[in-house]
């Protein structure tokens, strides 16, 4: 299992030159929007960047086990990072989009809770399958003791595995990840929806009521696209499996956060410039 452990994952740390180049791209994108469309569009781009960062950070909390988890050889949910993040985030995004009429705060809360709920149900069902169908106890391979409950894992961990099941700390991590992913996705959606609702009626020559379906469609599909871009960049940072916030790989999150901020800025620039 060493190929799936912490051994893989490219180089460690960050390249300072690359980060500077990335931050220059970020500033150029912000400056372009600031000069072409100051005010609402600029604030929306900042919202999109924050949303992207939340998604990238949130993905690191989600316990992912991949194929080894399906065989009970590593803890986590038995699927890839992108699929899980997309599931949690999009569930939240739909929840938030439904609540968009009820105000900014309610919509954000709806998105966050939708994502968290989706992850909570997924984690619960995963544990049901692990314990009652596969007959394995939850045991982490990365830490000796659960950081939250203080339970020890050593006696339960099967030989030759990296642990199995979904320990309590991973469950909590999954819920936090869903919360942040849903929050980020909904924030991107709401910011873009605001910009489109403000500028599309004049641009397309229709009334606000006529234009709402178009604004919703555009903001929704852009939010999905941006969500997947950020989730995949975070997945590339994790490279395979992660148990949750106690996993050593979790410490890598700064580079994904920087990467997601830049990616969101560039994609957000195109999304905002569509109506400018």
């Amino acid at each position, binding site marked *: 299992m060493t190929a*799936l452990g912490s051994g*893989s*994952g*490219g*180089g*460690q*740390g*960050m*390249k300072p*030159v*690359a*980060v500077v*180049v*990335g931050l220059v*791209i970020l500033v150029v994108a912000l400056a372009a929007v600031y000069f072409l469309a100051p005010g609402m569009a600029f604030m929306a781009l900042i919202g999109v960047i924050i949303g992207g960062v939340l998604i990238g950070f949130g993905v690191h909390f989600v316990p992912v086990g*991949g194929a080894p988890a399906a065989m009970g050889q590593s803890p986590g949910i038995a699927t*890839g*990072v*992108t*699929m899980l993040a*997309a599931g949690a985030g999009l569930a939240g995004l739909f929840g938030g989009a439904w609540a968009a009429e009820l105000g900014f705060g309610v919509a954000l809360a709806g998105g966050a809770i939708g994502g968290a709920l989706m992850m909570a149900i997924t984690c619960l069902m995963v544990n049901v399958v692990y314990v009652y169908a596969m007959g394995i106890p939850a045991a982490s391979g990365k830490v000796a003791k659960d950081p939250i409950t203080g339970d020890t894992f050593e006696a339960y961990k099967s030989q030759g595995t990296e642990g199995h099941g979904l320990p309590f700390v991973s469950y909590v991590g999954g819920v936090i990840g869903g919360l942040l992913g849903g929050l980020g996705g909904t924030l991107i959606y709401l910011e873009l929806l605001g910009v489109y609702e403000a500028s599309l009626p004049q641009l*397309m020559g*229709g009334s606000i009521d*006529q*234009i709402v*379906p*178009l604004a*919703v*469609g*555009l903001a*929704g*599909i*852009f939010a*999905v*696209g*941006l*969500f*997947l*871009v950020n*989730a*995949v*960049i975070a*997945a*590339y*940072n*994790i*490279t*395979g499996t992660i148990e949750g916030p106690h996993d050593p790989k979790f410490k890598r999150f700064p*580079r*994904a956060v*920087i*990467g997601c901020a*830049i*990616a969101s800025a*560039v*994609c957000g620039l*195109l*999304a905002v*410039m*569509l109506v400018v």
Partner: protein
Amino acid sequence: MTVQITASEGGMSHNKVLAIGLVGAVVCMYLTYLNALTGTEVFSFFGGLAAVFALWWGTDTIKHLCSYGLGTGVPSAGMIALGSGLVAMIFATKLSSMGIISSALVIPIGCVVIAGILGAILGYIANNIVNMSIPVMVSSIAELCIVGAVTILGLSAMATGSFVFADLASGQVAFFGITVANYQASLLGGGVIAAIFMLGAIGVQHAFNACLGPNESQDRTLMLAAECGFLSMITVSIISFAFIGMGSAIVSFAVSVIGWVYTYYKYLEMSKRDAYMWLDAKPILEKEEA
């Protein structure tokens, strides 16, 4: 991570696949513009063929990229391709109304250029900031972004007969015999683009994900990619009944089905060729006469 594991030897070089795919897709995109020139909608199916070329090329790109071992599985590459491609594609459809070049002919080539730039930036982020250190990362993500953008542009053009933003954003609804513009009855406002997005995302990553393994062979994988493309085309041709004329939609449907049947049989043949042996087992055994 930087050790390349070659999935299969021989076959076409990746650059050749890239050239055929890119040129084929762009040419087919321009052929859909015959719709606007001739005033019909019969040529919509060329958009689907552009998507097939793009998916065919994108499958080889994913194979090229994933031979380095991403650690995240093949589908993530398809997801970032379509996610970023979508952003570039919707922006590109707006190019003709931005006041620089007013002809719609700028859209397909502009789509390729914008997607290439966006993909290169994302590839740079993945390779240098996230520090994947994969030699082909930047070029592959750029290629994948173009593949995603051209796939969605092609399938959208197939569904609506046009690749201009104004046509994708507004549809027409007959109301007591009078046709009125309705934004809800459009590709973007009606959310049809989400279906096209998923068709493309599954189409681009499925072929390599399904065929990878010790005896993966390039022609079989690429044939499966073309088959996925035609299968997506069938779905889009059914969607297109809502947007374009009955006759044109039937032409699209016929082209998709013919393409799908041909590629499916070709793929089956190649699977039999590559298999160690195969048995034409019947689901229910016939009773032999004594």
